């Protein structure tokens, strides 16, 4: 499995996203540029210029028409994917750490940072999935996090709930219509900041990654803890693979936390765990800085990781990956029917 190395960014990667068909890969980094790549061969399709600060987050609507991005310049921007034109700018008081479209692309949530006297918020914007249409300035919902700021958030199935991960290691479920806090669960260790939250393909459960060195699989319906994946390093990202019952975790000792960072000590590997049995089943080396973001092809053909080292590595899964299965899974006929 030889990866394709994408060397288009000049600073550390912050988020990677595949389109729904998995053919195009979007990446954003602290160098203020969004890149689009063909996932099959790593050819760069284009870039999106306009942000005045480090980019923190991107997302693509399900029809691959619009691209949303959030950055440290306190804006959320909406782009026409095809032309690269910025079609809307929403201004905020603080940096935007996470954006995500709901399952039909009509709503966009944005998580804003707590800073300069402003509390962290989760904002919902109504979006018209049409590059020509006039986008509304209005925020259709604002959730203020007065306990501990939200760091990541996502939409549940049917856009019923907004799920948010917090700085103190808790995970909350909000009603996506009213914005009421329904549940707040201390899922991770106190202070073990939730660094990533990715939904399963049907959005009924999700995985969280945390600085407390664990990743957890949680039900979106009632926030029951389903699985725990322990590791030996602070985690920055976690993703669920479709087709195969695995999860991919990424992280590593931040450079400021270790005095002598050899690649051995740094633990800069992508770790594969079995989603159901919680066992670690493999590691993929390559980055020489912590992994900041991992994304999986929605069709399960490969995955991409973005590191603090400024590189994106795109991997295509090989035969062994698809053939792998526990004896128990074979018994039940779960392996091999690709």
């Amino acid at each position, binding site marked *: 499995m030889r990866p394709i190395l994408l060397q288009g960014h000049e600073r550390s990667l912050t988020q990677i996203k595949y389109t729904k*068909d*998995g*053919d195009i890969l979007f990446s954003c980094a602290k160098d203020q540029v969004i890149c689009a790549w*063909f996932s*099959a*061969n790593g*050819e760069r399709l284009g870039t999106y210029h306009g942000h005045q600060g480090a980019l923190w987050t991107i997302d693509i609507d399900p029809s691959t028409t619009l691209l949303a991005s959030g950055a440290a310049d306190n804006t959320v921007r909406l782009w026409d994917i095809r032309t690269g034109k910025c079609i809307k700018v929403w201004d905020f008081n603080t940096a935007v750490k996470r954006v995500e479209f709901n399952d039909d692309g009509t709503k966009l949530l944005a998580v804003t940072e707590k800073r300069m006297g402003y509390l962290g918020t989760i904002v919902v914007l109504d979006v018209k999935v049409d590059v020509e249409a006039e986008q509304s300035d209005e925020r259709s919902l604002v959730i203020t996090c007065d306990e501990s700021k939200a760091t990541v958030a996502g939409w549940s*199935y*049917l856009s019923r709930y907004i799920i948010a991960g917090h700085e103190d290691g808790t995970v909350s479920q909000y009603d996506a219509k009213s914005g009421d806090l329904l549940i707040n669960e201390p899922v991770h260790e106190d202070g073990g900041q939730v660094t990533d939250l990715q939904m399963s*393909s*049907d959005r*009924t*459960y999700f995985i969280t990654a945390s600085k407390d060195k664990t990743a957890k699989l949680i*039900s979106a*319906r009632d926030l029951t803890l*389903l699985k725990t994946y322990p590791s*030996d390093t602070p985690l920055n990202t976690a993703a669920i693979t*479709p087709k195969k019952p695995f999860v991919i975790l990424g992280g590593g000792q931040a450079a400021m936390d270790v005095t002598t960072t050899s690649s*051995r*000590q740094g633990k800069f590997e992508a770790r594969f765990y079995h989603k*159901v*049995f919680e066992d670690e089943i493999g590691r993929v080396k390559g980055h020489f800085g912590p992994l900041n973001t991992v994304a999986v092809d*929605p*069709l*399960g*053909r490969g995955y991409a990781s973005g590191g603090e080292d400024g590189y994106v590595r795109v991997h295509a899964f090989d035969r062994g990956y698809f053939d792998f299965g*526990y*004896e*128990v*899974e074979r*018994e*039940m006929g*779960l392996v091999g029917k690709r």
Partner: protein
Amino acid sequence: MAPSFDNLTEDNGTYDSEEEIDFSDLKEQYDVRLEQGLDAFVVVDGLPVVPEDSKPKLVKFLVKQLNKAGKVKEDGFFMPTNNKGMTEGYAFVEYQTPQQAIAATKQLHGTAIDKRHTFAINKITDVERYGREGRIDDEYQPPKIDDFAEKEHLRWWLGDPNSRDQFVMLRGDNVGVFWNKKKDPPENIVDRMHWTESHVQWSPLGTYLATMHARGVQLWGGPNWTRQTRFPHPMCNLIDFSPGETYITTWSFKPIEVSEDDPILSQEEDGKNYIIWDVATGRPLRSFQMHDLPTPPESETGQPVKKKVPWPAFKWSSDDKFVARMLEGQSISVYELPKMTLMDKTSIKIEGVMDFEWSPALPQRDSVKTYEQLFCFWTPEIGSNPAKVGLMSIPSKEIVRTRNLFNVTDAKLHWQSQGAYVCVKVDRHSKSKKSLATNLEIFRVREKGVPVEVVDSIKDTVINFAWEPKGDRFVLITTAEVVMTTAVPPKTAVSFFCPEKIKGAGVGNFKHIRTIEKKNSNAIYWSPKGRFVIVATVHSQQSFDLDFWDLDFEGEKPESDKDLTANLQLMNTGDHYGVTDVDWDPTGRYCVTSASVWKHTMENGYHLYDFKGELLREEHIEKFKQLSWRPRPLTLLSRDEQKTIRKNLREYSKDFEEQDRIEEDKEKGAIVEERRRVLSEWLAWREKEEEELKAERRELGLKEDVEEEEQADGEDGGGAVVEEIMEEVLDEVEEIA
């Protein structure tokens, strides 16, 4: 009610004199015991009653007796007579100093004067203090003796049906004891937070687990890990058990300060650094001050070199009968147990003595029938006298053997575990003092006349040496470079030696087997049963090799080695990043290599190997500090019984393998069963979720089976063709118009 400001009169504002307040209760409570000038006085009771005329004779006799503990002051003896002209059987005595008075109460109290009379000596201040009115009950209260309570079985762990071994592991603030389960995670027996404040230590036979605390040392044991004894040595830094666990030495860098009312320690221990205790009673036997360290030699830069405190300072003979301490350059003091009296009341003067070691087992010298213990010592060159290595027999103090050596820089004494040999590793300098070389002087203690064999074929400096336990082979590590604390580890060479084959009984001369060059190794760890040895690189930043050697390899023997009593074979090599310690279990079946947070913070944890060097399991533990195996006492089986077992080993091993297989199958089955359960639970949950989602979609009037549709899309999309346009510039011509 507290007086309010209103009703304060002027008088109340200031007290005219203190007499108005009754301080007596406070005075009594906080009474400072002033120097009463009576500290040098003692009351002597239990004396014979004699008439006036024989009194001078008695006084003369008594003063002579009392002077044993000090010097009675002139006119310091007062024995009153009553009106009948008879003495009363007591006397008041003044010593020259209060210390002598204390010594008299300690040494002479309870000793016999003659057949019928016994001294009863008390400090006069104590008589005042304890005998004051109201302090003594008129009626005799018998002391309360606790009922006999049966102790837990201290060797319970040896009864494990699978003969597993235990180890103690210290990580973070937790101390846990575990059963070794080979490939499986160890089984926890007990785990306590803050069980120790620094480290833990097993007693040499494994009976007790010692924990260290600011207020002393505690020993634990039995299946419930109850406290067996404690030794209240405040700020104790290090401990050392006698080989038979009868006694223990505790040491603190800070001299002990004993408080007045300490229940265990007396003023005797005040200001001391070492205490030797009786483990069974928990009482101190004797305490010692630290010797002043000899003035540290100055290093080349003029800075004084910090000298390590020699540990153990008190070295035990193998049978717990003697303990000895060296005063560097002067003498060795041998104490006899259990009384802890100095043998023959005098230290053994050995001019210049640098180091000494007891034989680790009862020596069996040729044609010596009487009981003896041996120790080996060495002295450097003094003036024109050569350096010397000697063997001394105790208690006779006879020097059994000496050997003169020249150009000696340093020497190290290595006894073989059965006391059959002692190897003196002599670092010698050339005449110009520029180069160093090492000689081995091997004393064959059991042979007639204690012959010395010299191994001088070694060109380089030997940095490590180790005898095979219960064997007669050894391993050493040499380096050509002078060991310096640079980042690059020095290149070293590992050499193996064994005796050559001879006809008849006895052991042949030591011969070189093989040398492995270009290593970084610096440590040798023999299996406690001999035969297998690990040569490792520890405490290194770059290199972490573990080499597992077999000295009795059962395969073919190379022709060149046919005269040797060994067949050397490298069985396996390992690699443990950041390894700091290597520990064999007491049976020699397993070996643990560990990386302790005490030395560095990278990848702390341990690896478990079997004796063949096969990695059984590894575990990374944050803040891992220490792992040590529980030692086992000597076997109770006779030599013959052990032999039979060894002979039938193959049959036994069948049983054990069978057991292992059953265990494995059982566990495998359990794991599979568990997986099956987990998987079906998950699938059921998924099914339920999907059902619910479908129902909810239906309610909202959405398409039901979006997901399936997507899935199908996915399958098609999987084969999508990507069009790639390759452009290649073949030639570029710039045209100028």
